[in-house]
């Protein structure tokens, strides 16, 4: 099998060995869950319950009308203690529902799942509604509503199951490939059925090549594949950001998602393997997205491991209940996500969300800080940029306030992968400037549009 890749990229040290051999551990008893109401990308939703209410596992606790909305479900059975703004993993305070576990009143069920639904016998609308009602969003990071992604307005020929996991440290997708390949294949086949795609590909980076025989076996045993559905595996070069949607599509198909466009413009849909598993669960068990797998690692985590925990689990609670052991002395940085694109948060008192793929607890030695030096114009960033937007030149345009030039170079095309800042020998704040620059450019454009009116 040929190994494919994209142009550019970087090679951060992987550090996956810390947690890659730890089987996924299921955490079911937590002292509380703090569930952010708005975890998806789209219109805000409202709580459906009040403080003091008893909620069952899987009960819908927040929702709203609208296409770009996704409901939230109780991830444990218990009593609603508080509904108040709390710090979330995106470093913004947002409305959260706090639930503490409590035994179910006599004779009542403690769970409220939906009835199973056969994805291959139901209509497309029913299937999409099921995915929405299950509260499924993209679990790779962006949190885009799955039912919107799976209702593309253009014909789709290829569905890519993203198991590239190019972020260093993170191993949850790798463990999912090893431990539940059948569920991934099932989820992929369901998605292919819903959007009527002719081909499915499970994309795996070379460093996880050893999982291929297991995945291959799962594919061969899948009833849909036996009935003629086409699902394959593609090995990709281990390189960051190989798991980026656009890089994945280009590596596999050679097509480039047009600037400002979506994967569907080139006939592709990309879905993280975690999302595919959640979709399979939503149909087979009627289970909404109430828990997720993620990696807890970093030098300040004495017990690097992969766990499945309820959505809303507070990281500090995992330590208190002995699931993980945090080296408080050396803990210097808490990151939700991986080291390349993850968000640094102010404490461990932050809940895990539907799109949390990892919690990285960095030690003092790991959390390096550098003084920004002058650009030596080495062009490493230009070679690393997977979007080919010449970061060094873009930074010069932004620093000189020339947003017209910045837009022309491709500021809005930046996927904020951070490969430029990673490779910079002068530790320039490149992607950091582009993040701010994007906001400034958007504001300038809005102002312009208002002036025209």
């Amino acid at each position, binding site marked *: 099998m040929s190994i494919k890749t994209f142009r550019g990229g970087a090679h951060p040290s992987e550090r996956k060995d810390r947690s890659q051999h730890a089987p996924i551990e299921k955490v079911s008893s937590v002292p509380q869950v703090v569930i952010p109401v708005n975890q998806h990308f789209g219109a805000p939703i409202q709580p459906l319950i009040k403080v003091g209410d008893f909620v069952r596992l899987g009960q819908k606790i927040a929702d709203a009308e609208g296409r770009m909305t996704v409901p939230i479900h109780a991830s444990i059975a218990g009593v609603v203690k508080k509904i108040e703004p709390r710090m979330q993993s995106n470093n913004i305070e947002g409305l959260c529902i706090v639930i503490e576990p409590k035994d179910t009143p006599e004779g009542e069920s403690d769970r409220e799942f939906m009835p199973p639904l056969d994805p291959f016998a139901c209509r497309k609308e029913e299937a999409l509604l099921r995915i929405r009602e299950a509260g499924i969003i993209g679990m790779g990071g962006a949190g885009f509503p799955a039912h919107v992604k799976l209702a593309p307005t253009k014909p789709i020929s290829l569905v890519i199951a993203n198991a590239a996991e190019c972020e260093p440290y993170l191993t949850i997708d790798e463990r999912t490939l090893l431990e539940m390949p059948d569920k991934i294949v099932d989820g992929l086949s369901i998605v292919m059925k819903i959007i009527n795609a002719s081909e499915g590909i499970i994309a795996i980076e070379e460093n996880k090549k050893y999982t291929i025989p297991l995945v291959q076996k799962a594919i061969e045993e899948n009833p849909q594949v036996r009935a003629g559905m086409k699902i394959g595996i593609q090995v990709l070069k281990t390189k960051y950001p190989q798991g980026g949607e656009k890089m994945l599509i280009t590596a596999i198909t050679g097509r480039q998602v047009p*600037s400002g466009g979506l994967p569907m413009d080139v006939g592709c849909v990309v879905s993280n393997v975690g999302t595919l598993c959640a979709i399979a669960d939503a149909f087979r068990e009627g289970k909404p997205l109430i828990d997720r797998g993620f990696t807890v690692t970093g030098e300040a985590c004495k017990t690097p491991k992969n766990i499945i925990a309820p959505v809303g689990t507070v990281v500090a609670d995992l330590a208190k209940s002995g699931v993980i052991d945090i080296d408080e002395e050396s803990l210097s*940085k808490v990151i939700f996500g991986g080291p390349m*694109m993850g968000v640094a948060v102010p404490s461990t008192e932050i809940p895990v969300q539907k799109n949390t793929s990892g919690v990285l607890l*960095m030690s003092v030695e790991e959390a390096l800080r550098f003084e920004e030096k002058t*650009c030596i114009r080495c062009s490493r960033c230009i070679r690393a940029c997977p979007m080919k*937007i010449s970061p060094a030149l873009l930074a010069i345009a932004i620093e000189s306030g020339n947003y017209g030039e910045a837009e022309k170079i491709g500021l809005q095309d930046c996927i904020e992968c951070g490969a430029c800042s990673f490779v*910079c020998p*002068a*530790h320039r704040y490149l992607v950091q400037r582009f993040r701010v620059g994007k906001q400034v450019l958007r504001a300038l454009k809005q102002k312009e549009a208002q002036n025209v009116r």
Partner: protein
Amino acid sequence: MSDKKIILSSSPHTFSPVDTPRIMLSVVIALVPAAAYGIYLYGLAALGVILTSITAAVLSEFLFRKLIKASTTVGDFSAVVSGLLLALVLPPATPLWMVALGAVFAIVVAKEFFGGLGANPFNPALIGRAFLLMSFPAAITSWNMPKGLALPADAVSTATPLNLIKQGNSLADVAKYFGASDIGAFYRQLFIGYRPGTIGESSILLVLLGGLFLLAIGVIQWIVPVSVLASTFVFSWLLGMDPVFSLLTGGIAFGAFFMATDYATRPLTEKGQALYGIGIGLIAVLIRKFGGYPEGVTYAILIMNVLTPFLNKLRTKKYGFLPPPKPVKPSKEATK
């Protein structure tokens, strides 16, 4: 726990270990073989030039930045690189005060006046050399005889192969002058570097060795050196000069790998780098063929440095680039 020590910063949270001082030191390492060979050929005089140049470069950067109350930057080792590069493109007999003056001019005028590392439009080492060449033409064009090289008894002064070609001698005569039995043997002699020249340029073998080392560790990319060498070869051949001799002599190989690849003064984009390299080769050949100087690599690179900001406009097409929609011609639509 105290939350005070938790660091907040925008991603990425991990960084490549390759930083500026490491890059500069690797360039120094790459230059060691050529420099050592220069010292072997010309003895302590060459060593003196090298040490004087580096010391003057580092000191002048340190003192100048102190004077203007800017942060000290000698720790990035870029002044060491500039000083060493300048020494290697000077004749071994250059008076040491001249060497020091050239190094100070290179660092203070060509680099610090423009804002320091990365902001200089011209290659500092070459500005230093050009400054000395214009100020003291005789000293910078008088050559020492490499150790043990025997010349015909009637040779009045030492000349580089390019000097002799400029004086109208044929390549066969030049080969004979340097004691080579035929042109093939002369090529080999030039490749090894047994001829008069600047301290670091003579041995193509050792220059290549250093250049390949930098290519292998990713400090430089192939586009600039390859385009410089290829364009030199092609344009010499087109102008009726011996293309192999053109590559093996003068400073073209040294310039291609160590001067033209200077980060701050070469274009950042791949297309820009290719044109830049081609331009250097062309101008160097034109100066050798038609100019007043026997060698033109210094000026070729400096002239192309001027064009770098314009060549930077030649960016690689961004990912997913869509050409702007062509304006629809209403008349054509109407007739249809």
